[in-house]
């Protein structure tokens, strides 16, 4: 019944967030804090690895919306990977899959930040 933990790892200039549990109005503050910390440290290349995320309510999507402007304005982006079916479905229902880039694997998501520099 552990509700939410969010681990953060830095890999060179990419910051990885690992929310584990669920994000709803009860737990969203924790997720928001982790996201805001990355932004405050000016780490704007963010990958949210959702492999441990069981579900996300609109509060969680609002938290992402609340940070994305600053992240993109600073030349970064927030990208997502390893969404389970429930979570992917919620993104699709809201059309968020058109607002955010979603990758099948963590490696793909990390490498996507290298695209601009390729050969």
């Amino acid at each position: 019944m552990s509700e939410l933990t969010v681990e953060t790892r830095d890999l060179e200039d990419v910051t990885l967030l690992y929310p584990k549990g669920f994000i709803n109005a009860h737990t969203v503050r924790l997720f928001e804090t982790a996201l805001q910390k990355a932004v405050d440290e000016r780490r704007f290349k963010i990958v949210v690895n959702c492999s441990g995320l069981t579900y996300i309510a609109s509060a969680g999507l609002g938290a992402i919306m609340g940070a994305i402007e600053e992240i993109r304005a600073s030349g970064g982006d927030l990208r997502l990977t390893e969404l389970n079916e429930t979570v992917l479905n919620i993104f699709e229902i809201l059309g968020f899959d058109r607002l955010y880039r979603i990758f099948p694997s963590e490696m793909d998501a990390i490498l996507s930040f290298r695209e601009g520099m390729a050969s």
Partner: protein
Amino acid sequence: MAKASLLLWIPSDTSYLGLVRDVTKKMAEHAGFDSGTADRVALAVDEAATNALEHAYQGATDKEVEVRFEDRGAEFRVDVVDTGQMVDPRAVPRVDLARYVSERRTGGLGVHLMEKIMDSVTFRRSARRNICCLVKRKGSGGTEGA
């Protein structure tokens, strides 16, 4: 009586939203919805309960929310009831996703999600209570994608 029905009371505290979601999912599954649809219905009810806590009660944690579930055979109905501030249904804004990002909004997604997931979402006030009524028809399964 042909089907199961259920009444759940929770304190107006977000820590109970997980229980609302779990109970909704089980009721929806036993009403005959597949696991994915039950997940979505549970999310819609979580959103309605969240709105009661955040908007009707404005975060006060000493109130109560009642959630009523009824399997009516052809449809599954959930009422989320609070005794908080009156909601004007016409005031609940609709989301335009195309303008959502540029307007820098972070709210308004809950009602949008509820409407995308359920076949009907209505708000009414009766006997000093707000009643958010969510209905999902059986056999209206996986059509709410995108």
